[in-house]
């Protein structure tokens, strides 16, 4: 249960990090918050020749608002995102999800980019980015590319990040006025990975009709599942109990989860439907309340 030997570099700029990653290719592993990589090293599930620690690159951390999006540096600690008033105001769905990631000791070190690049199929952040249609900003030897979630997440713990590339930022659209959001999940204990989790966002017009909705689920497949059919039920009408019920049914129909040690596929499918209904109901309530989300 001790990490295998490796070389170690801690670059202080993105350019320096990319040079190291370019030189070492598949032999290198990027160390962000270490809350996933360190256990994998200790279990010797990964044996990199070199660990490139990006914790000393100040340019990779920070939250700013640019052109209607929230741009969050990949090395921003999860705890900083959780406590950010800007995130709470501009991207309440992300704020809703944060306290459900691990425990506060984990979030003190864990980073937003580390969690996204690790791509655990039951993690909260990939579902948030998928629901909102965010962009993942990747830099590599060929320059910068911006990827949609469906272009980034490939499978269990697998993304389209190439050796030599670094996830540097995530961009999320700022929530329009009268938007309510909710992230709800079922896990065995608080802080565990979700058995099923649902990220939901609902935008209403002045008359109370739904003009925009989004739903994405985690824990029900190798990548986050965007349930567009479920969200579409709400758009154009009043989001009443019947519409929410139907959205839940469609979300359950949209997922094909596997059975594992913790839950059967049938259970997960059922919970996906129930949680979708609940998440949307809470999002609607908050949108009606003026869009200001509160921690559940």
């Amino acid at each position, binding site marked *: *249960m*001790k990490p295998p030997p490796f070389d*170690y570099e801690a670059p202080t700029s993105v350019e320096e990090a990319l040079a190291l990653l370019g030189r070492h290719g598949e032999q290198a592993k990027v160390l962000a918050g270490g*809350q996933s990589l*360190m256990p994998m090293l200790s279990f010797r599930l990964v044996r990199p020749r070199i660990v490139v*620690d990006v914790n000393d690159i100040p340019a990779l951390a920070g939250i700013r608002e640019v052109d209607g999006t929230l741009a969050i540096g990949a090395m921003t600690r999860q705890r900083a995102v959780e406590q950010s008033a800007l995130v709470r105001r501009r991207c309440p769905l992300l704020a809703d999800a944060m306290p459900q990631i*691990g425990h506060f*000791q984990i979030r003190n*070190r864990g980073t937003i980019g580390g969690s996204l690049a690790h791509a655990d199929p039951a993690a909260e952040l990939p579902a948030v980015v998928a629901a909102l249609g965010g962009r993942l900003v990747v830099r590599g030897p060929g320059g910068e590319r911006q990827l949609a979630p469906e272009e980034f997440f490939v499978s269990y713990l697998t993304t389209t990040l190439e050796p030599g590339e670094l996830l540097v930022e995530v961009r999320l659209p700022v929530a329009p006025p009268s938007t309510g959001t909710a992230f709800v999940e079922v896990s065995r204990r608080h802080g565990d990975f979700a058995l099923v989790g649902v990220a939901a966002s609902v935008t209403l017009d002045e008359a109370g009709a739904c003009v925009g909705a989004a739903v994405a689920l985690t824990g029900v497949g190798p990548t986050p599942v965007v349930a567009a059919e479920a969200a579409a039920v709400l758009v154009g009408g009043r989001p009443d109990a019947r519409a929410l019920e139907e959205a839940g049914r469609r979300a359950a129909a949209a997922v094909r989860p596997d059975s594992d040690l913790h839950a059967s596929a049938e259970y997960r499918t059922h919970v996906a439907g129930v949680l979708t209904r609940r998440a949307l109901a809470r999002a609607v309530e908050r949108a009606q309340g003026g869009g200001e989300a509160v921690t559940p």
Partner: protein
Amino acid sequence: MSERTIRVTVNGRVHEAAVEPRRTLADFLRDDLGLTGTHLGCEHGVCGACTIVLDGDAVRSCLLLAVQAHGREILTVESLADGDRLHPLQEAFREHHGLQCGFCTPGFLMTLTCFLRDHPDPTEAEIREALAGNLCRCTGYKNIVAAARAAAATLATLTPTPTRSPA
């Protein structure tokens, strides 16, 4: 794999040492500095026994490399007691039977020092959530929660916060 020289302040004392990059901070504290109060249960970030305070934040020392602590300040469980005088938090654990075998206790104490600093008057639900990342196989947690509540009350009398209304 060559060793690196690091300089770390632990419990107010500066230490300089050469470490292999793969050495975890937990192993560095225990084996290189002899501070064996920090315990290792799972060594993969689940049990919380190895929780220490890094620059003011409670973190798992098994999930950090010693080289990452270069230039940083660390507090371990050894920082709590003042000679033979227990810290109020330790006193509360003793008083309320918040430990049996004691293996997990250092992690609980270091988690709670940060939590009670940030939440001087917590509800029981807040305490339980804060402790969710620390596993205890003896107590059933009831007495640990009681100890945390008692410690919060004692600490409040020692450092009254201006925002609290007088009782």
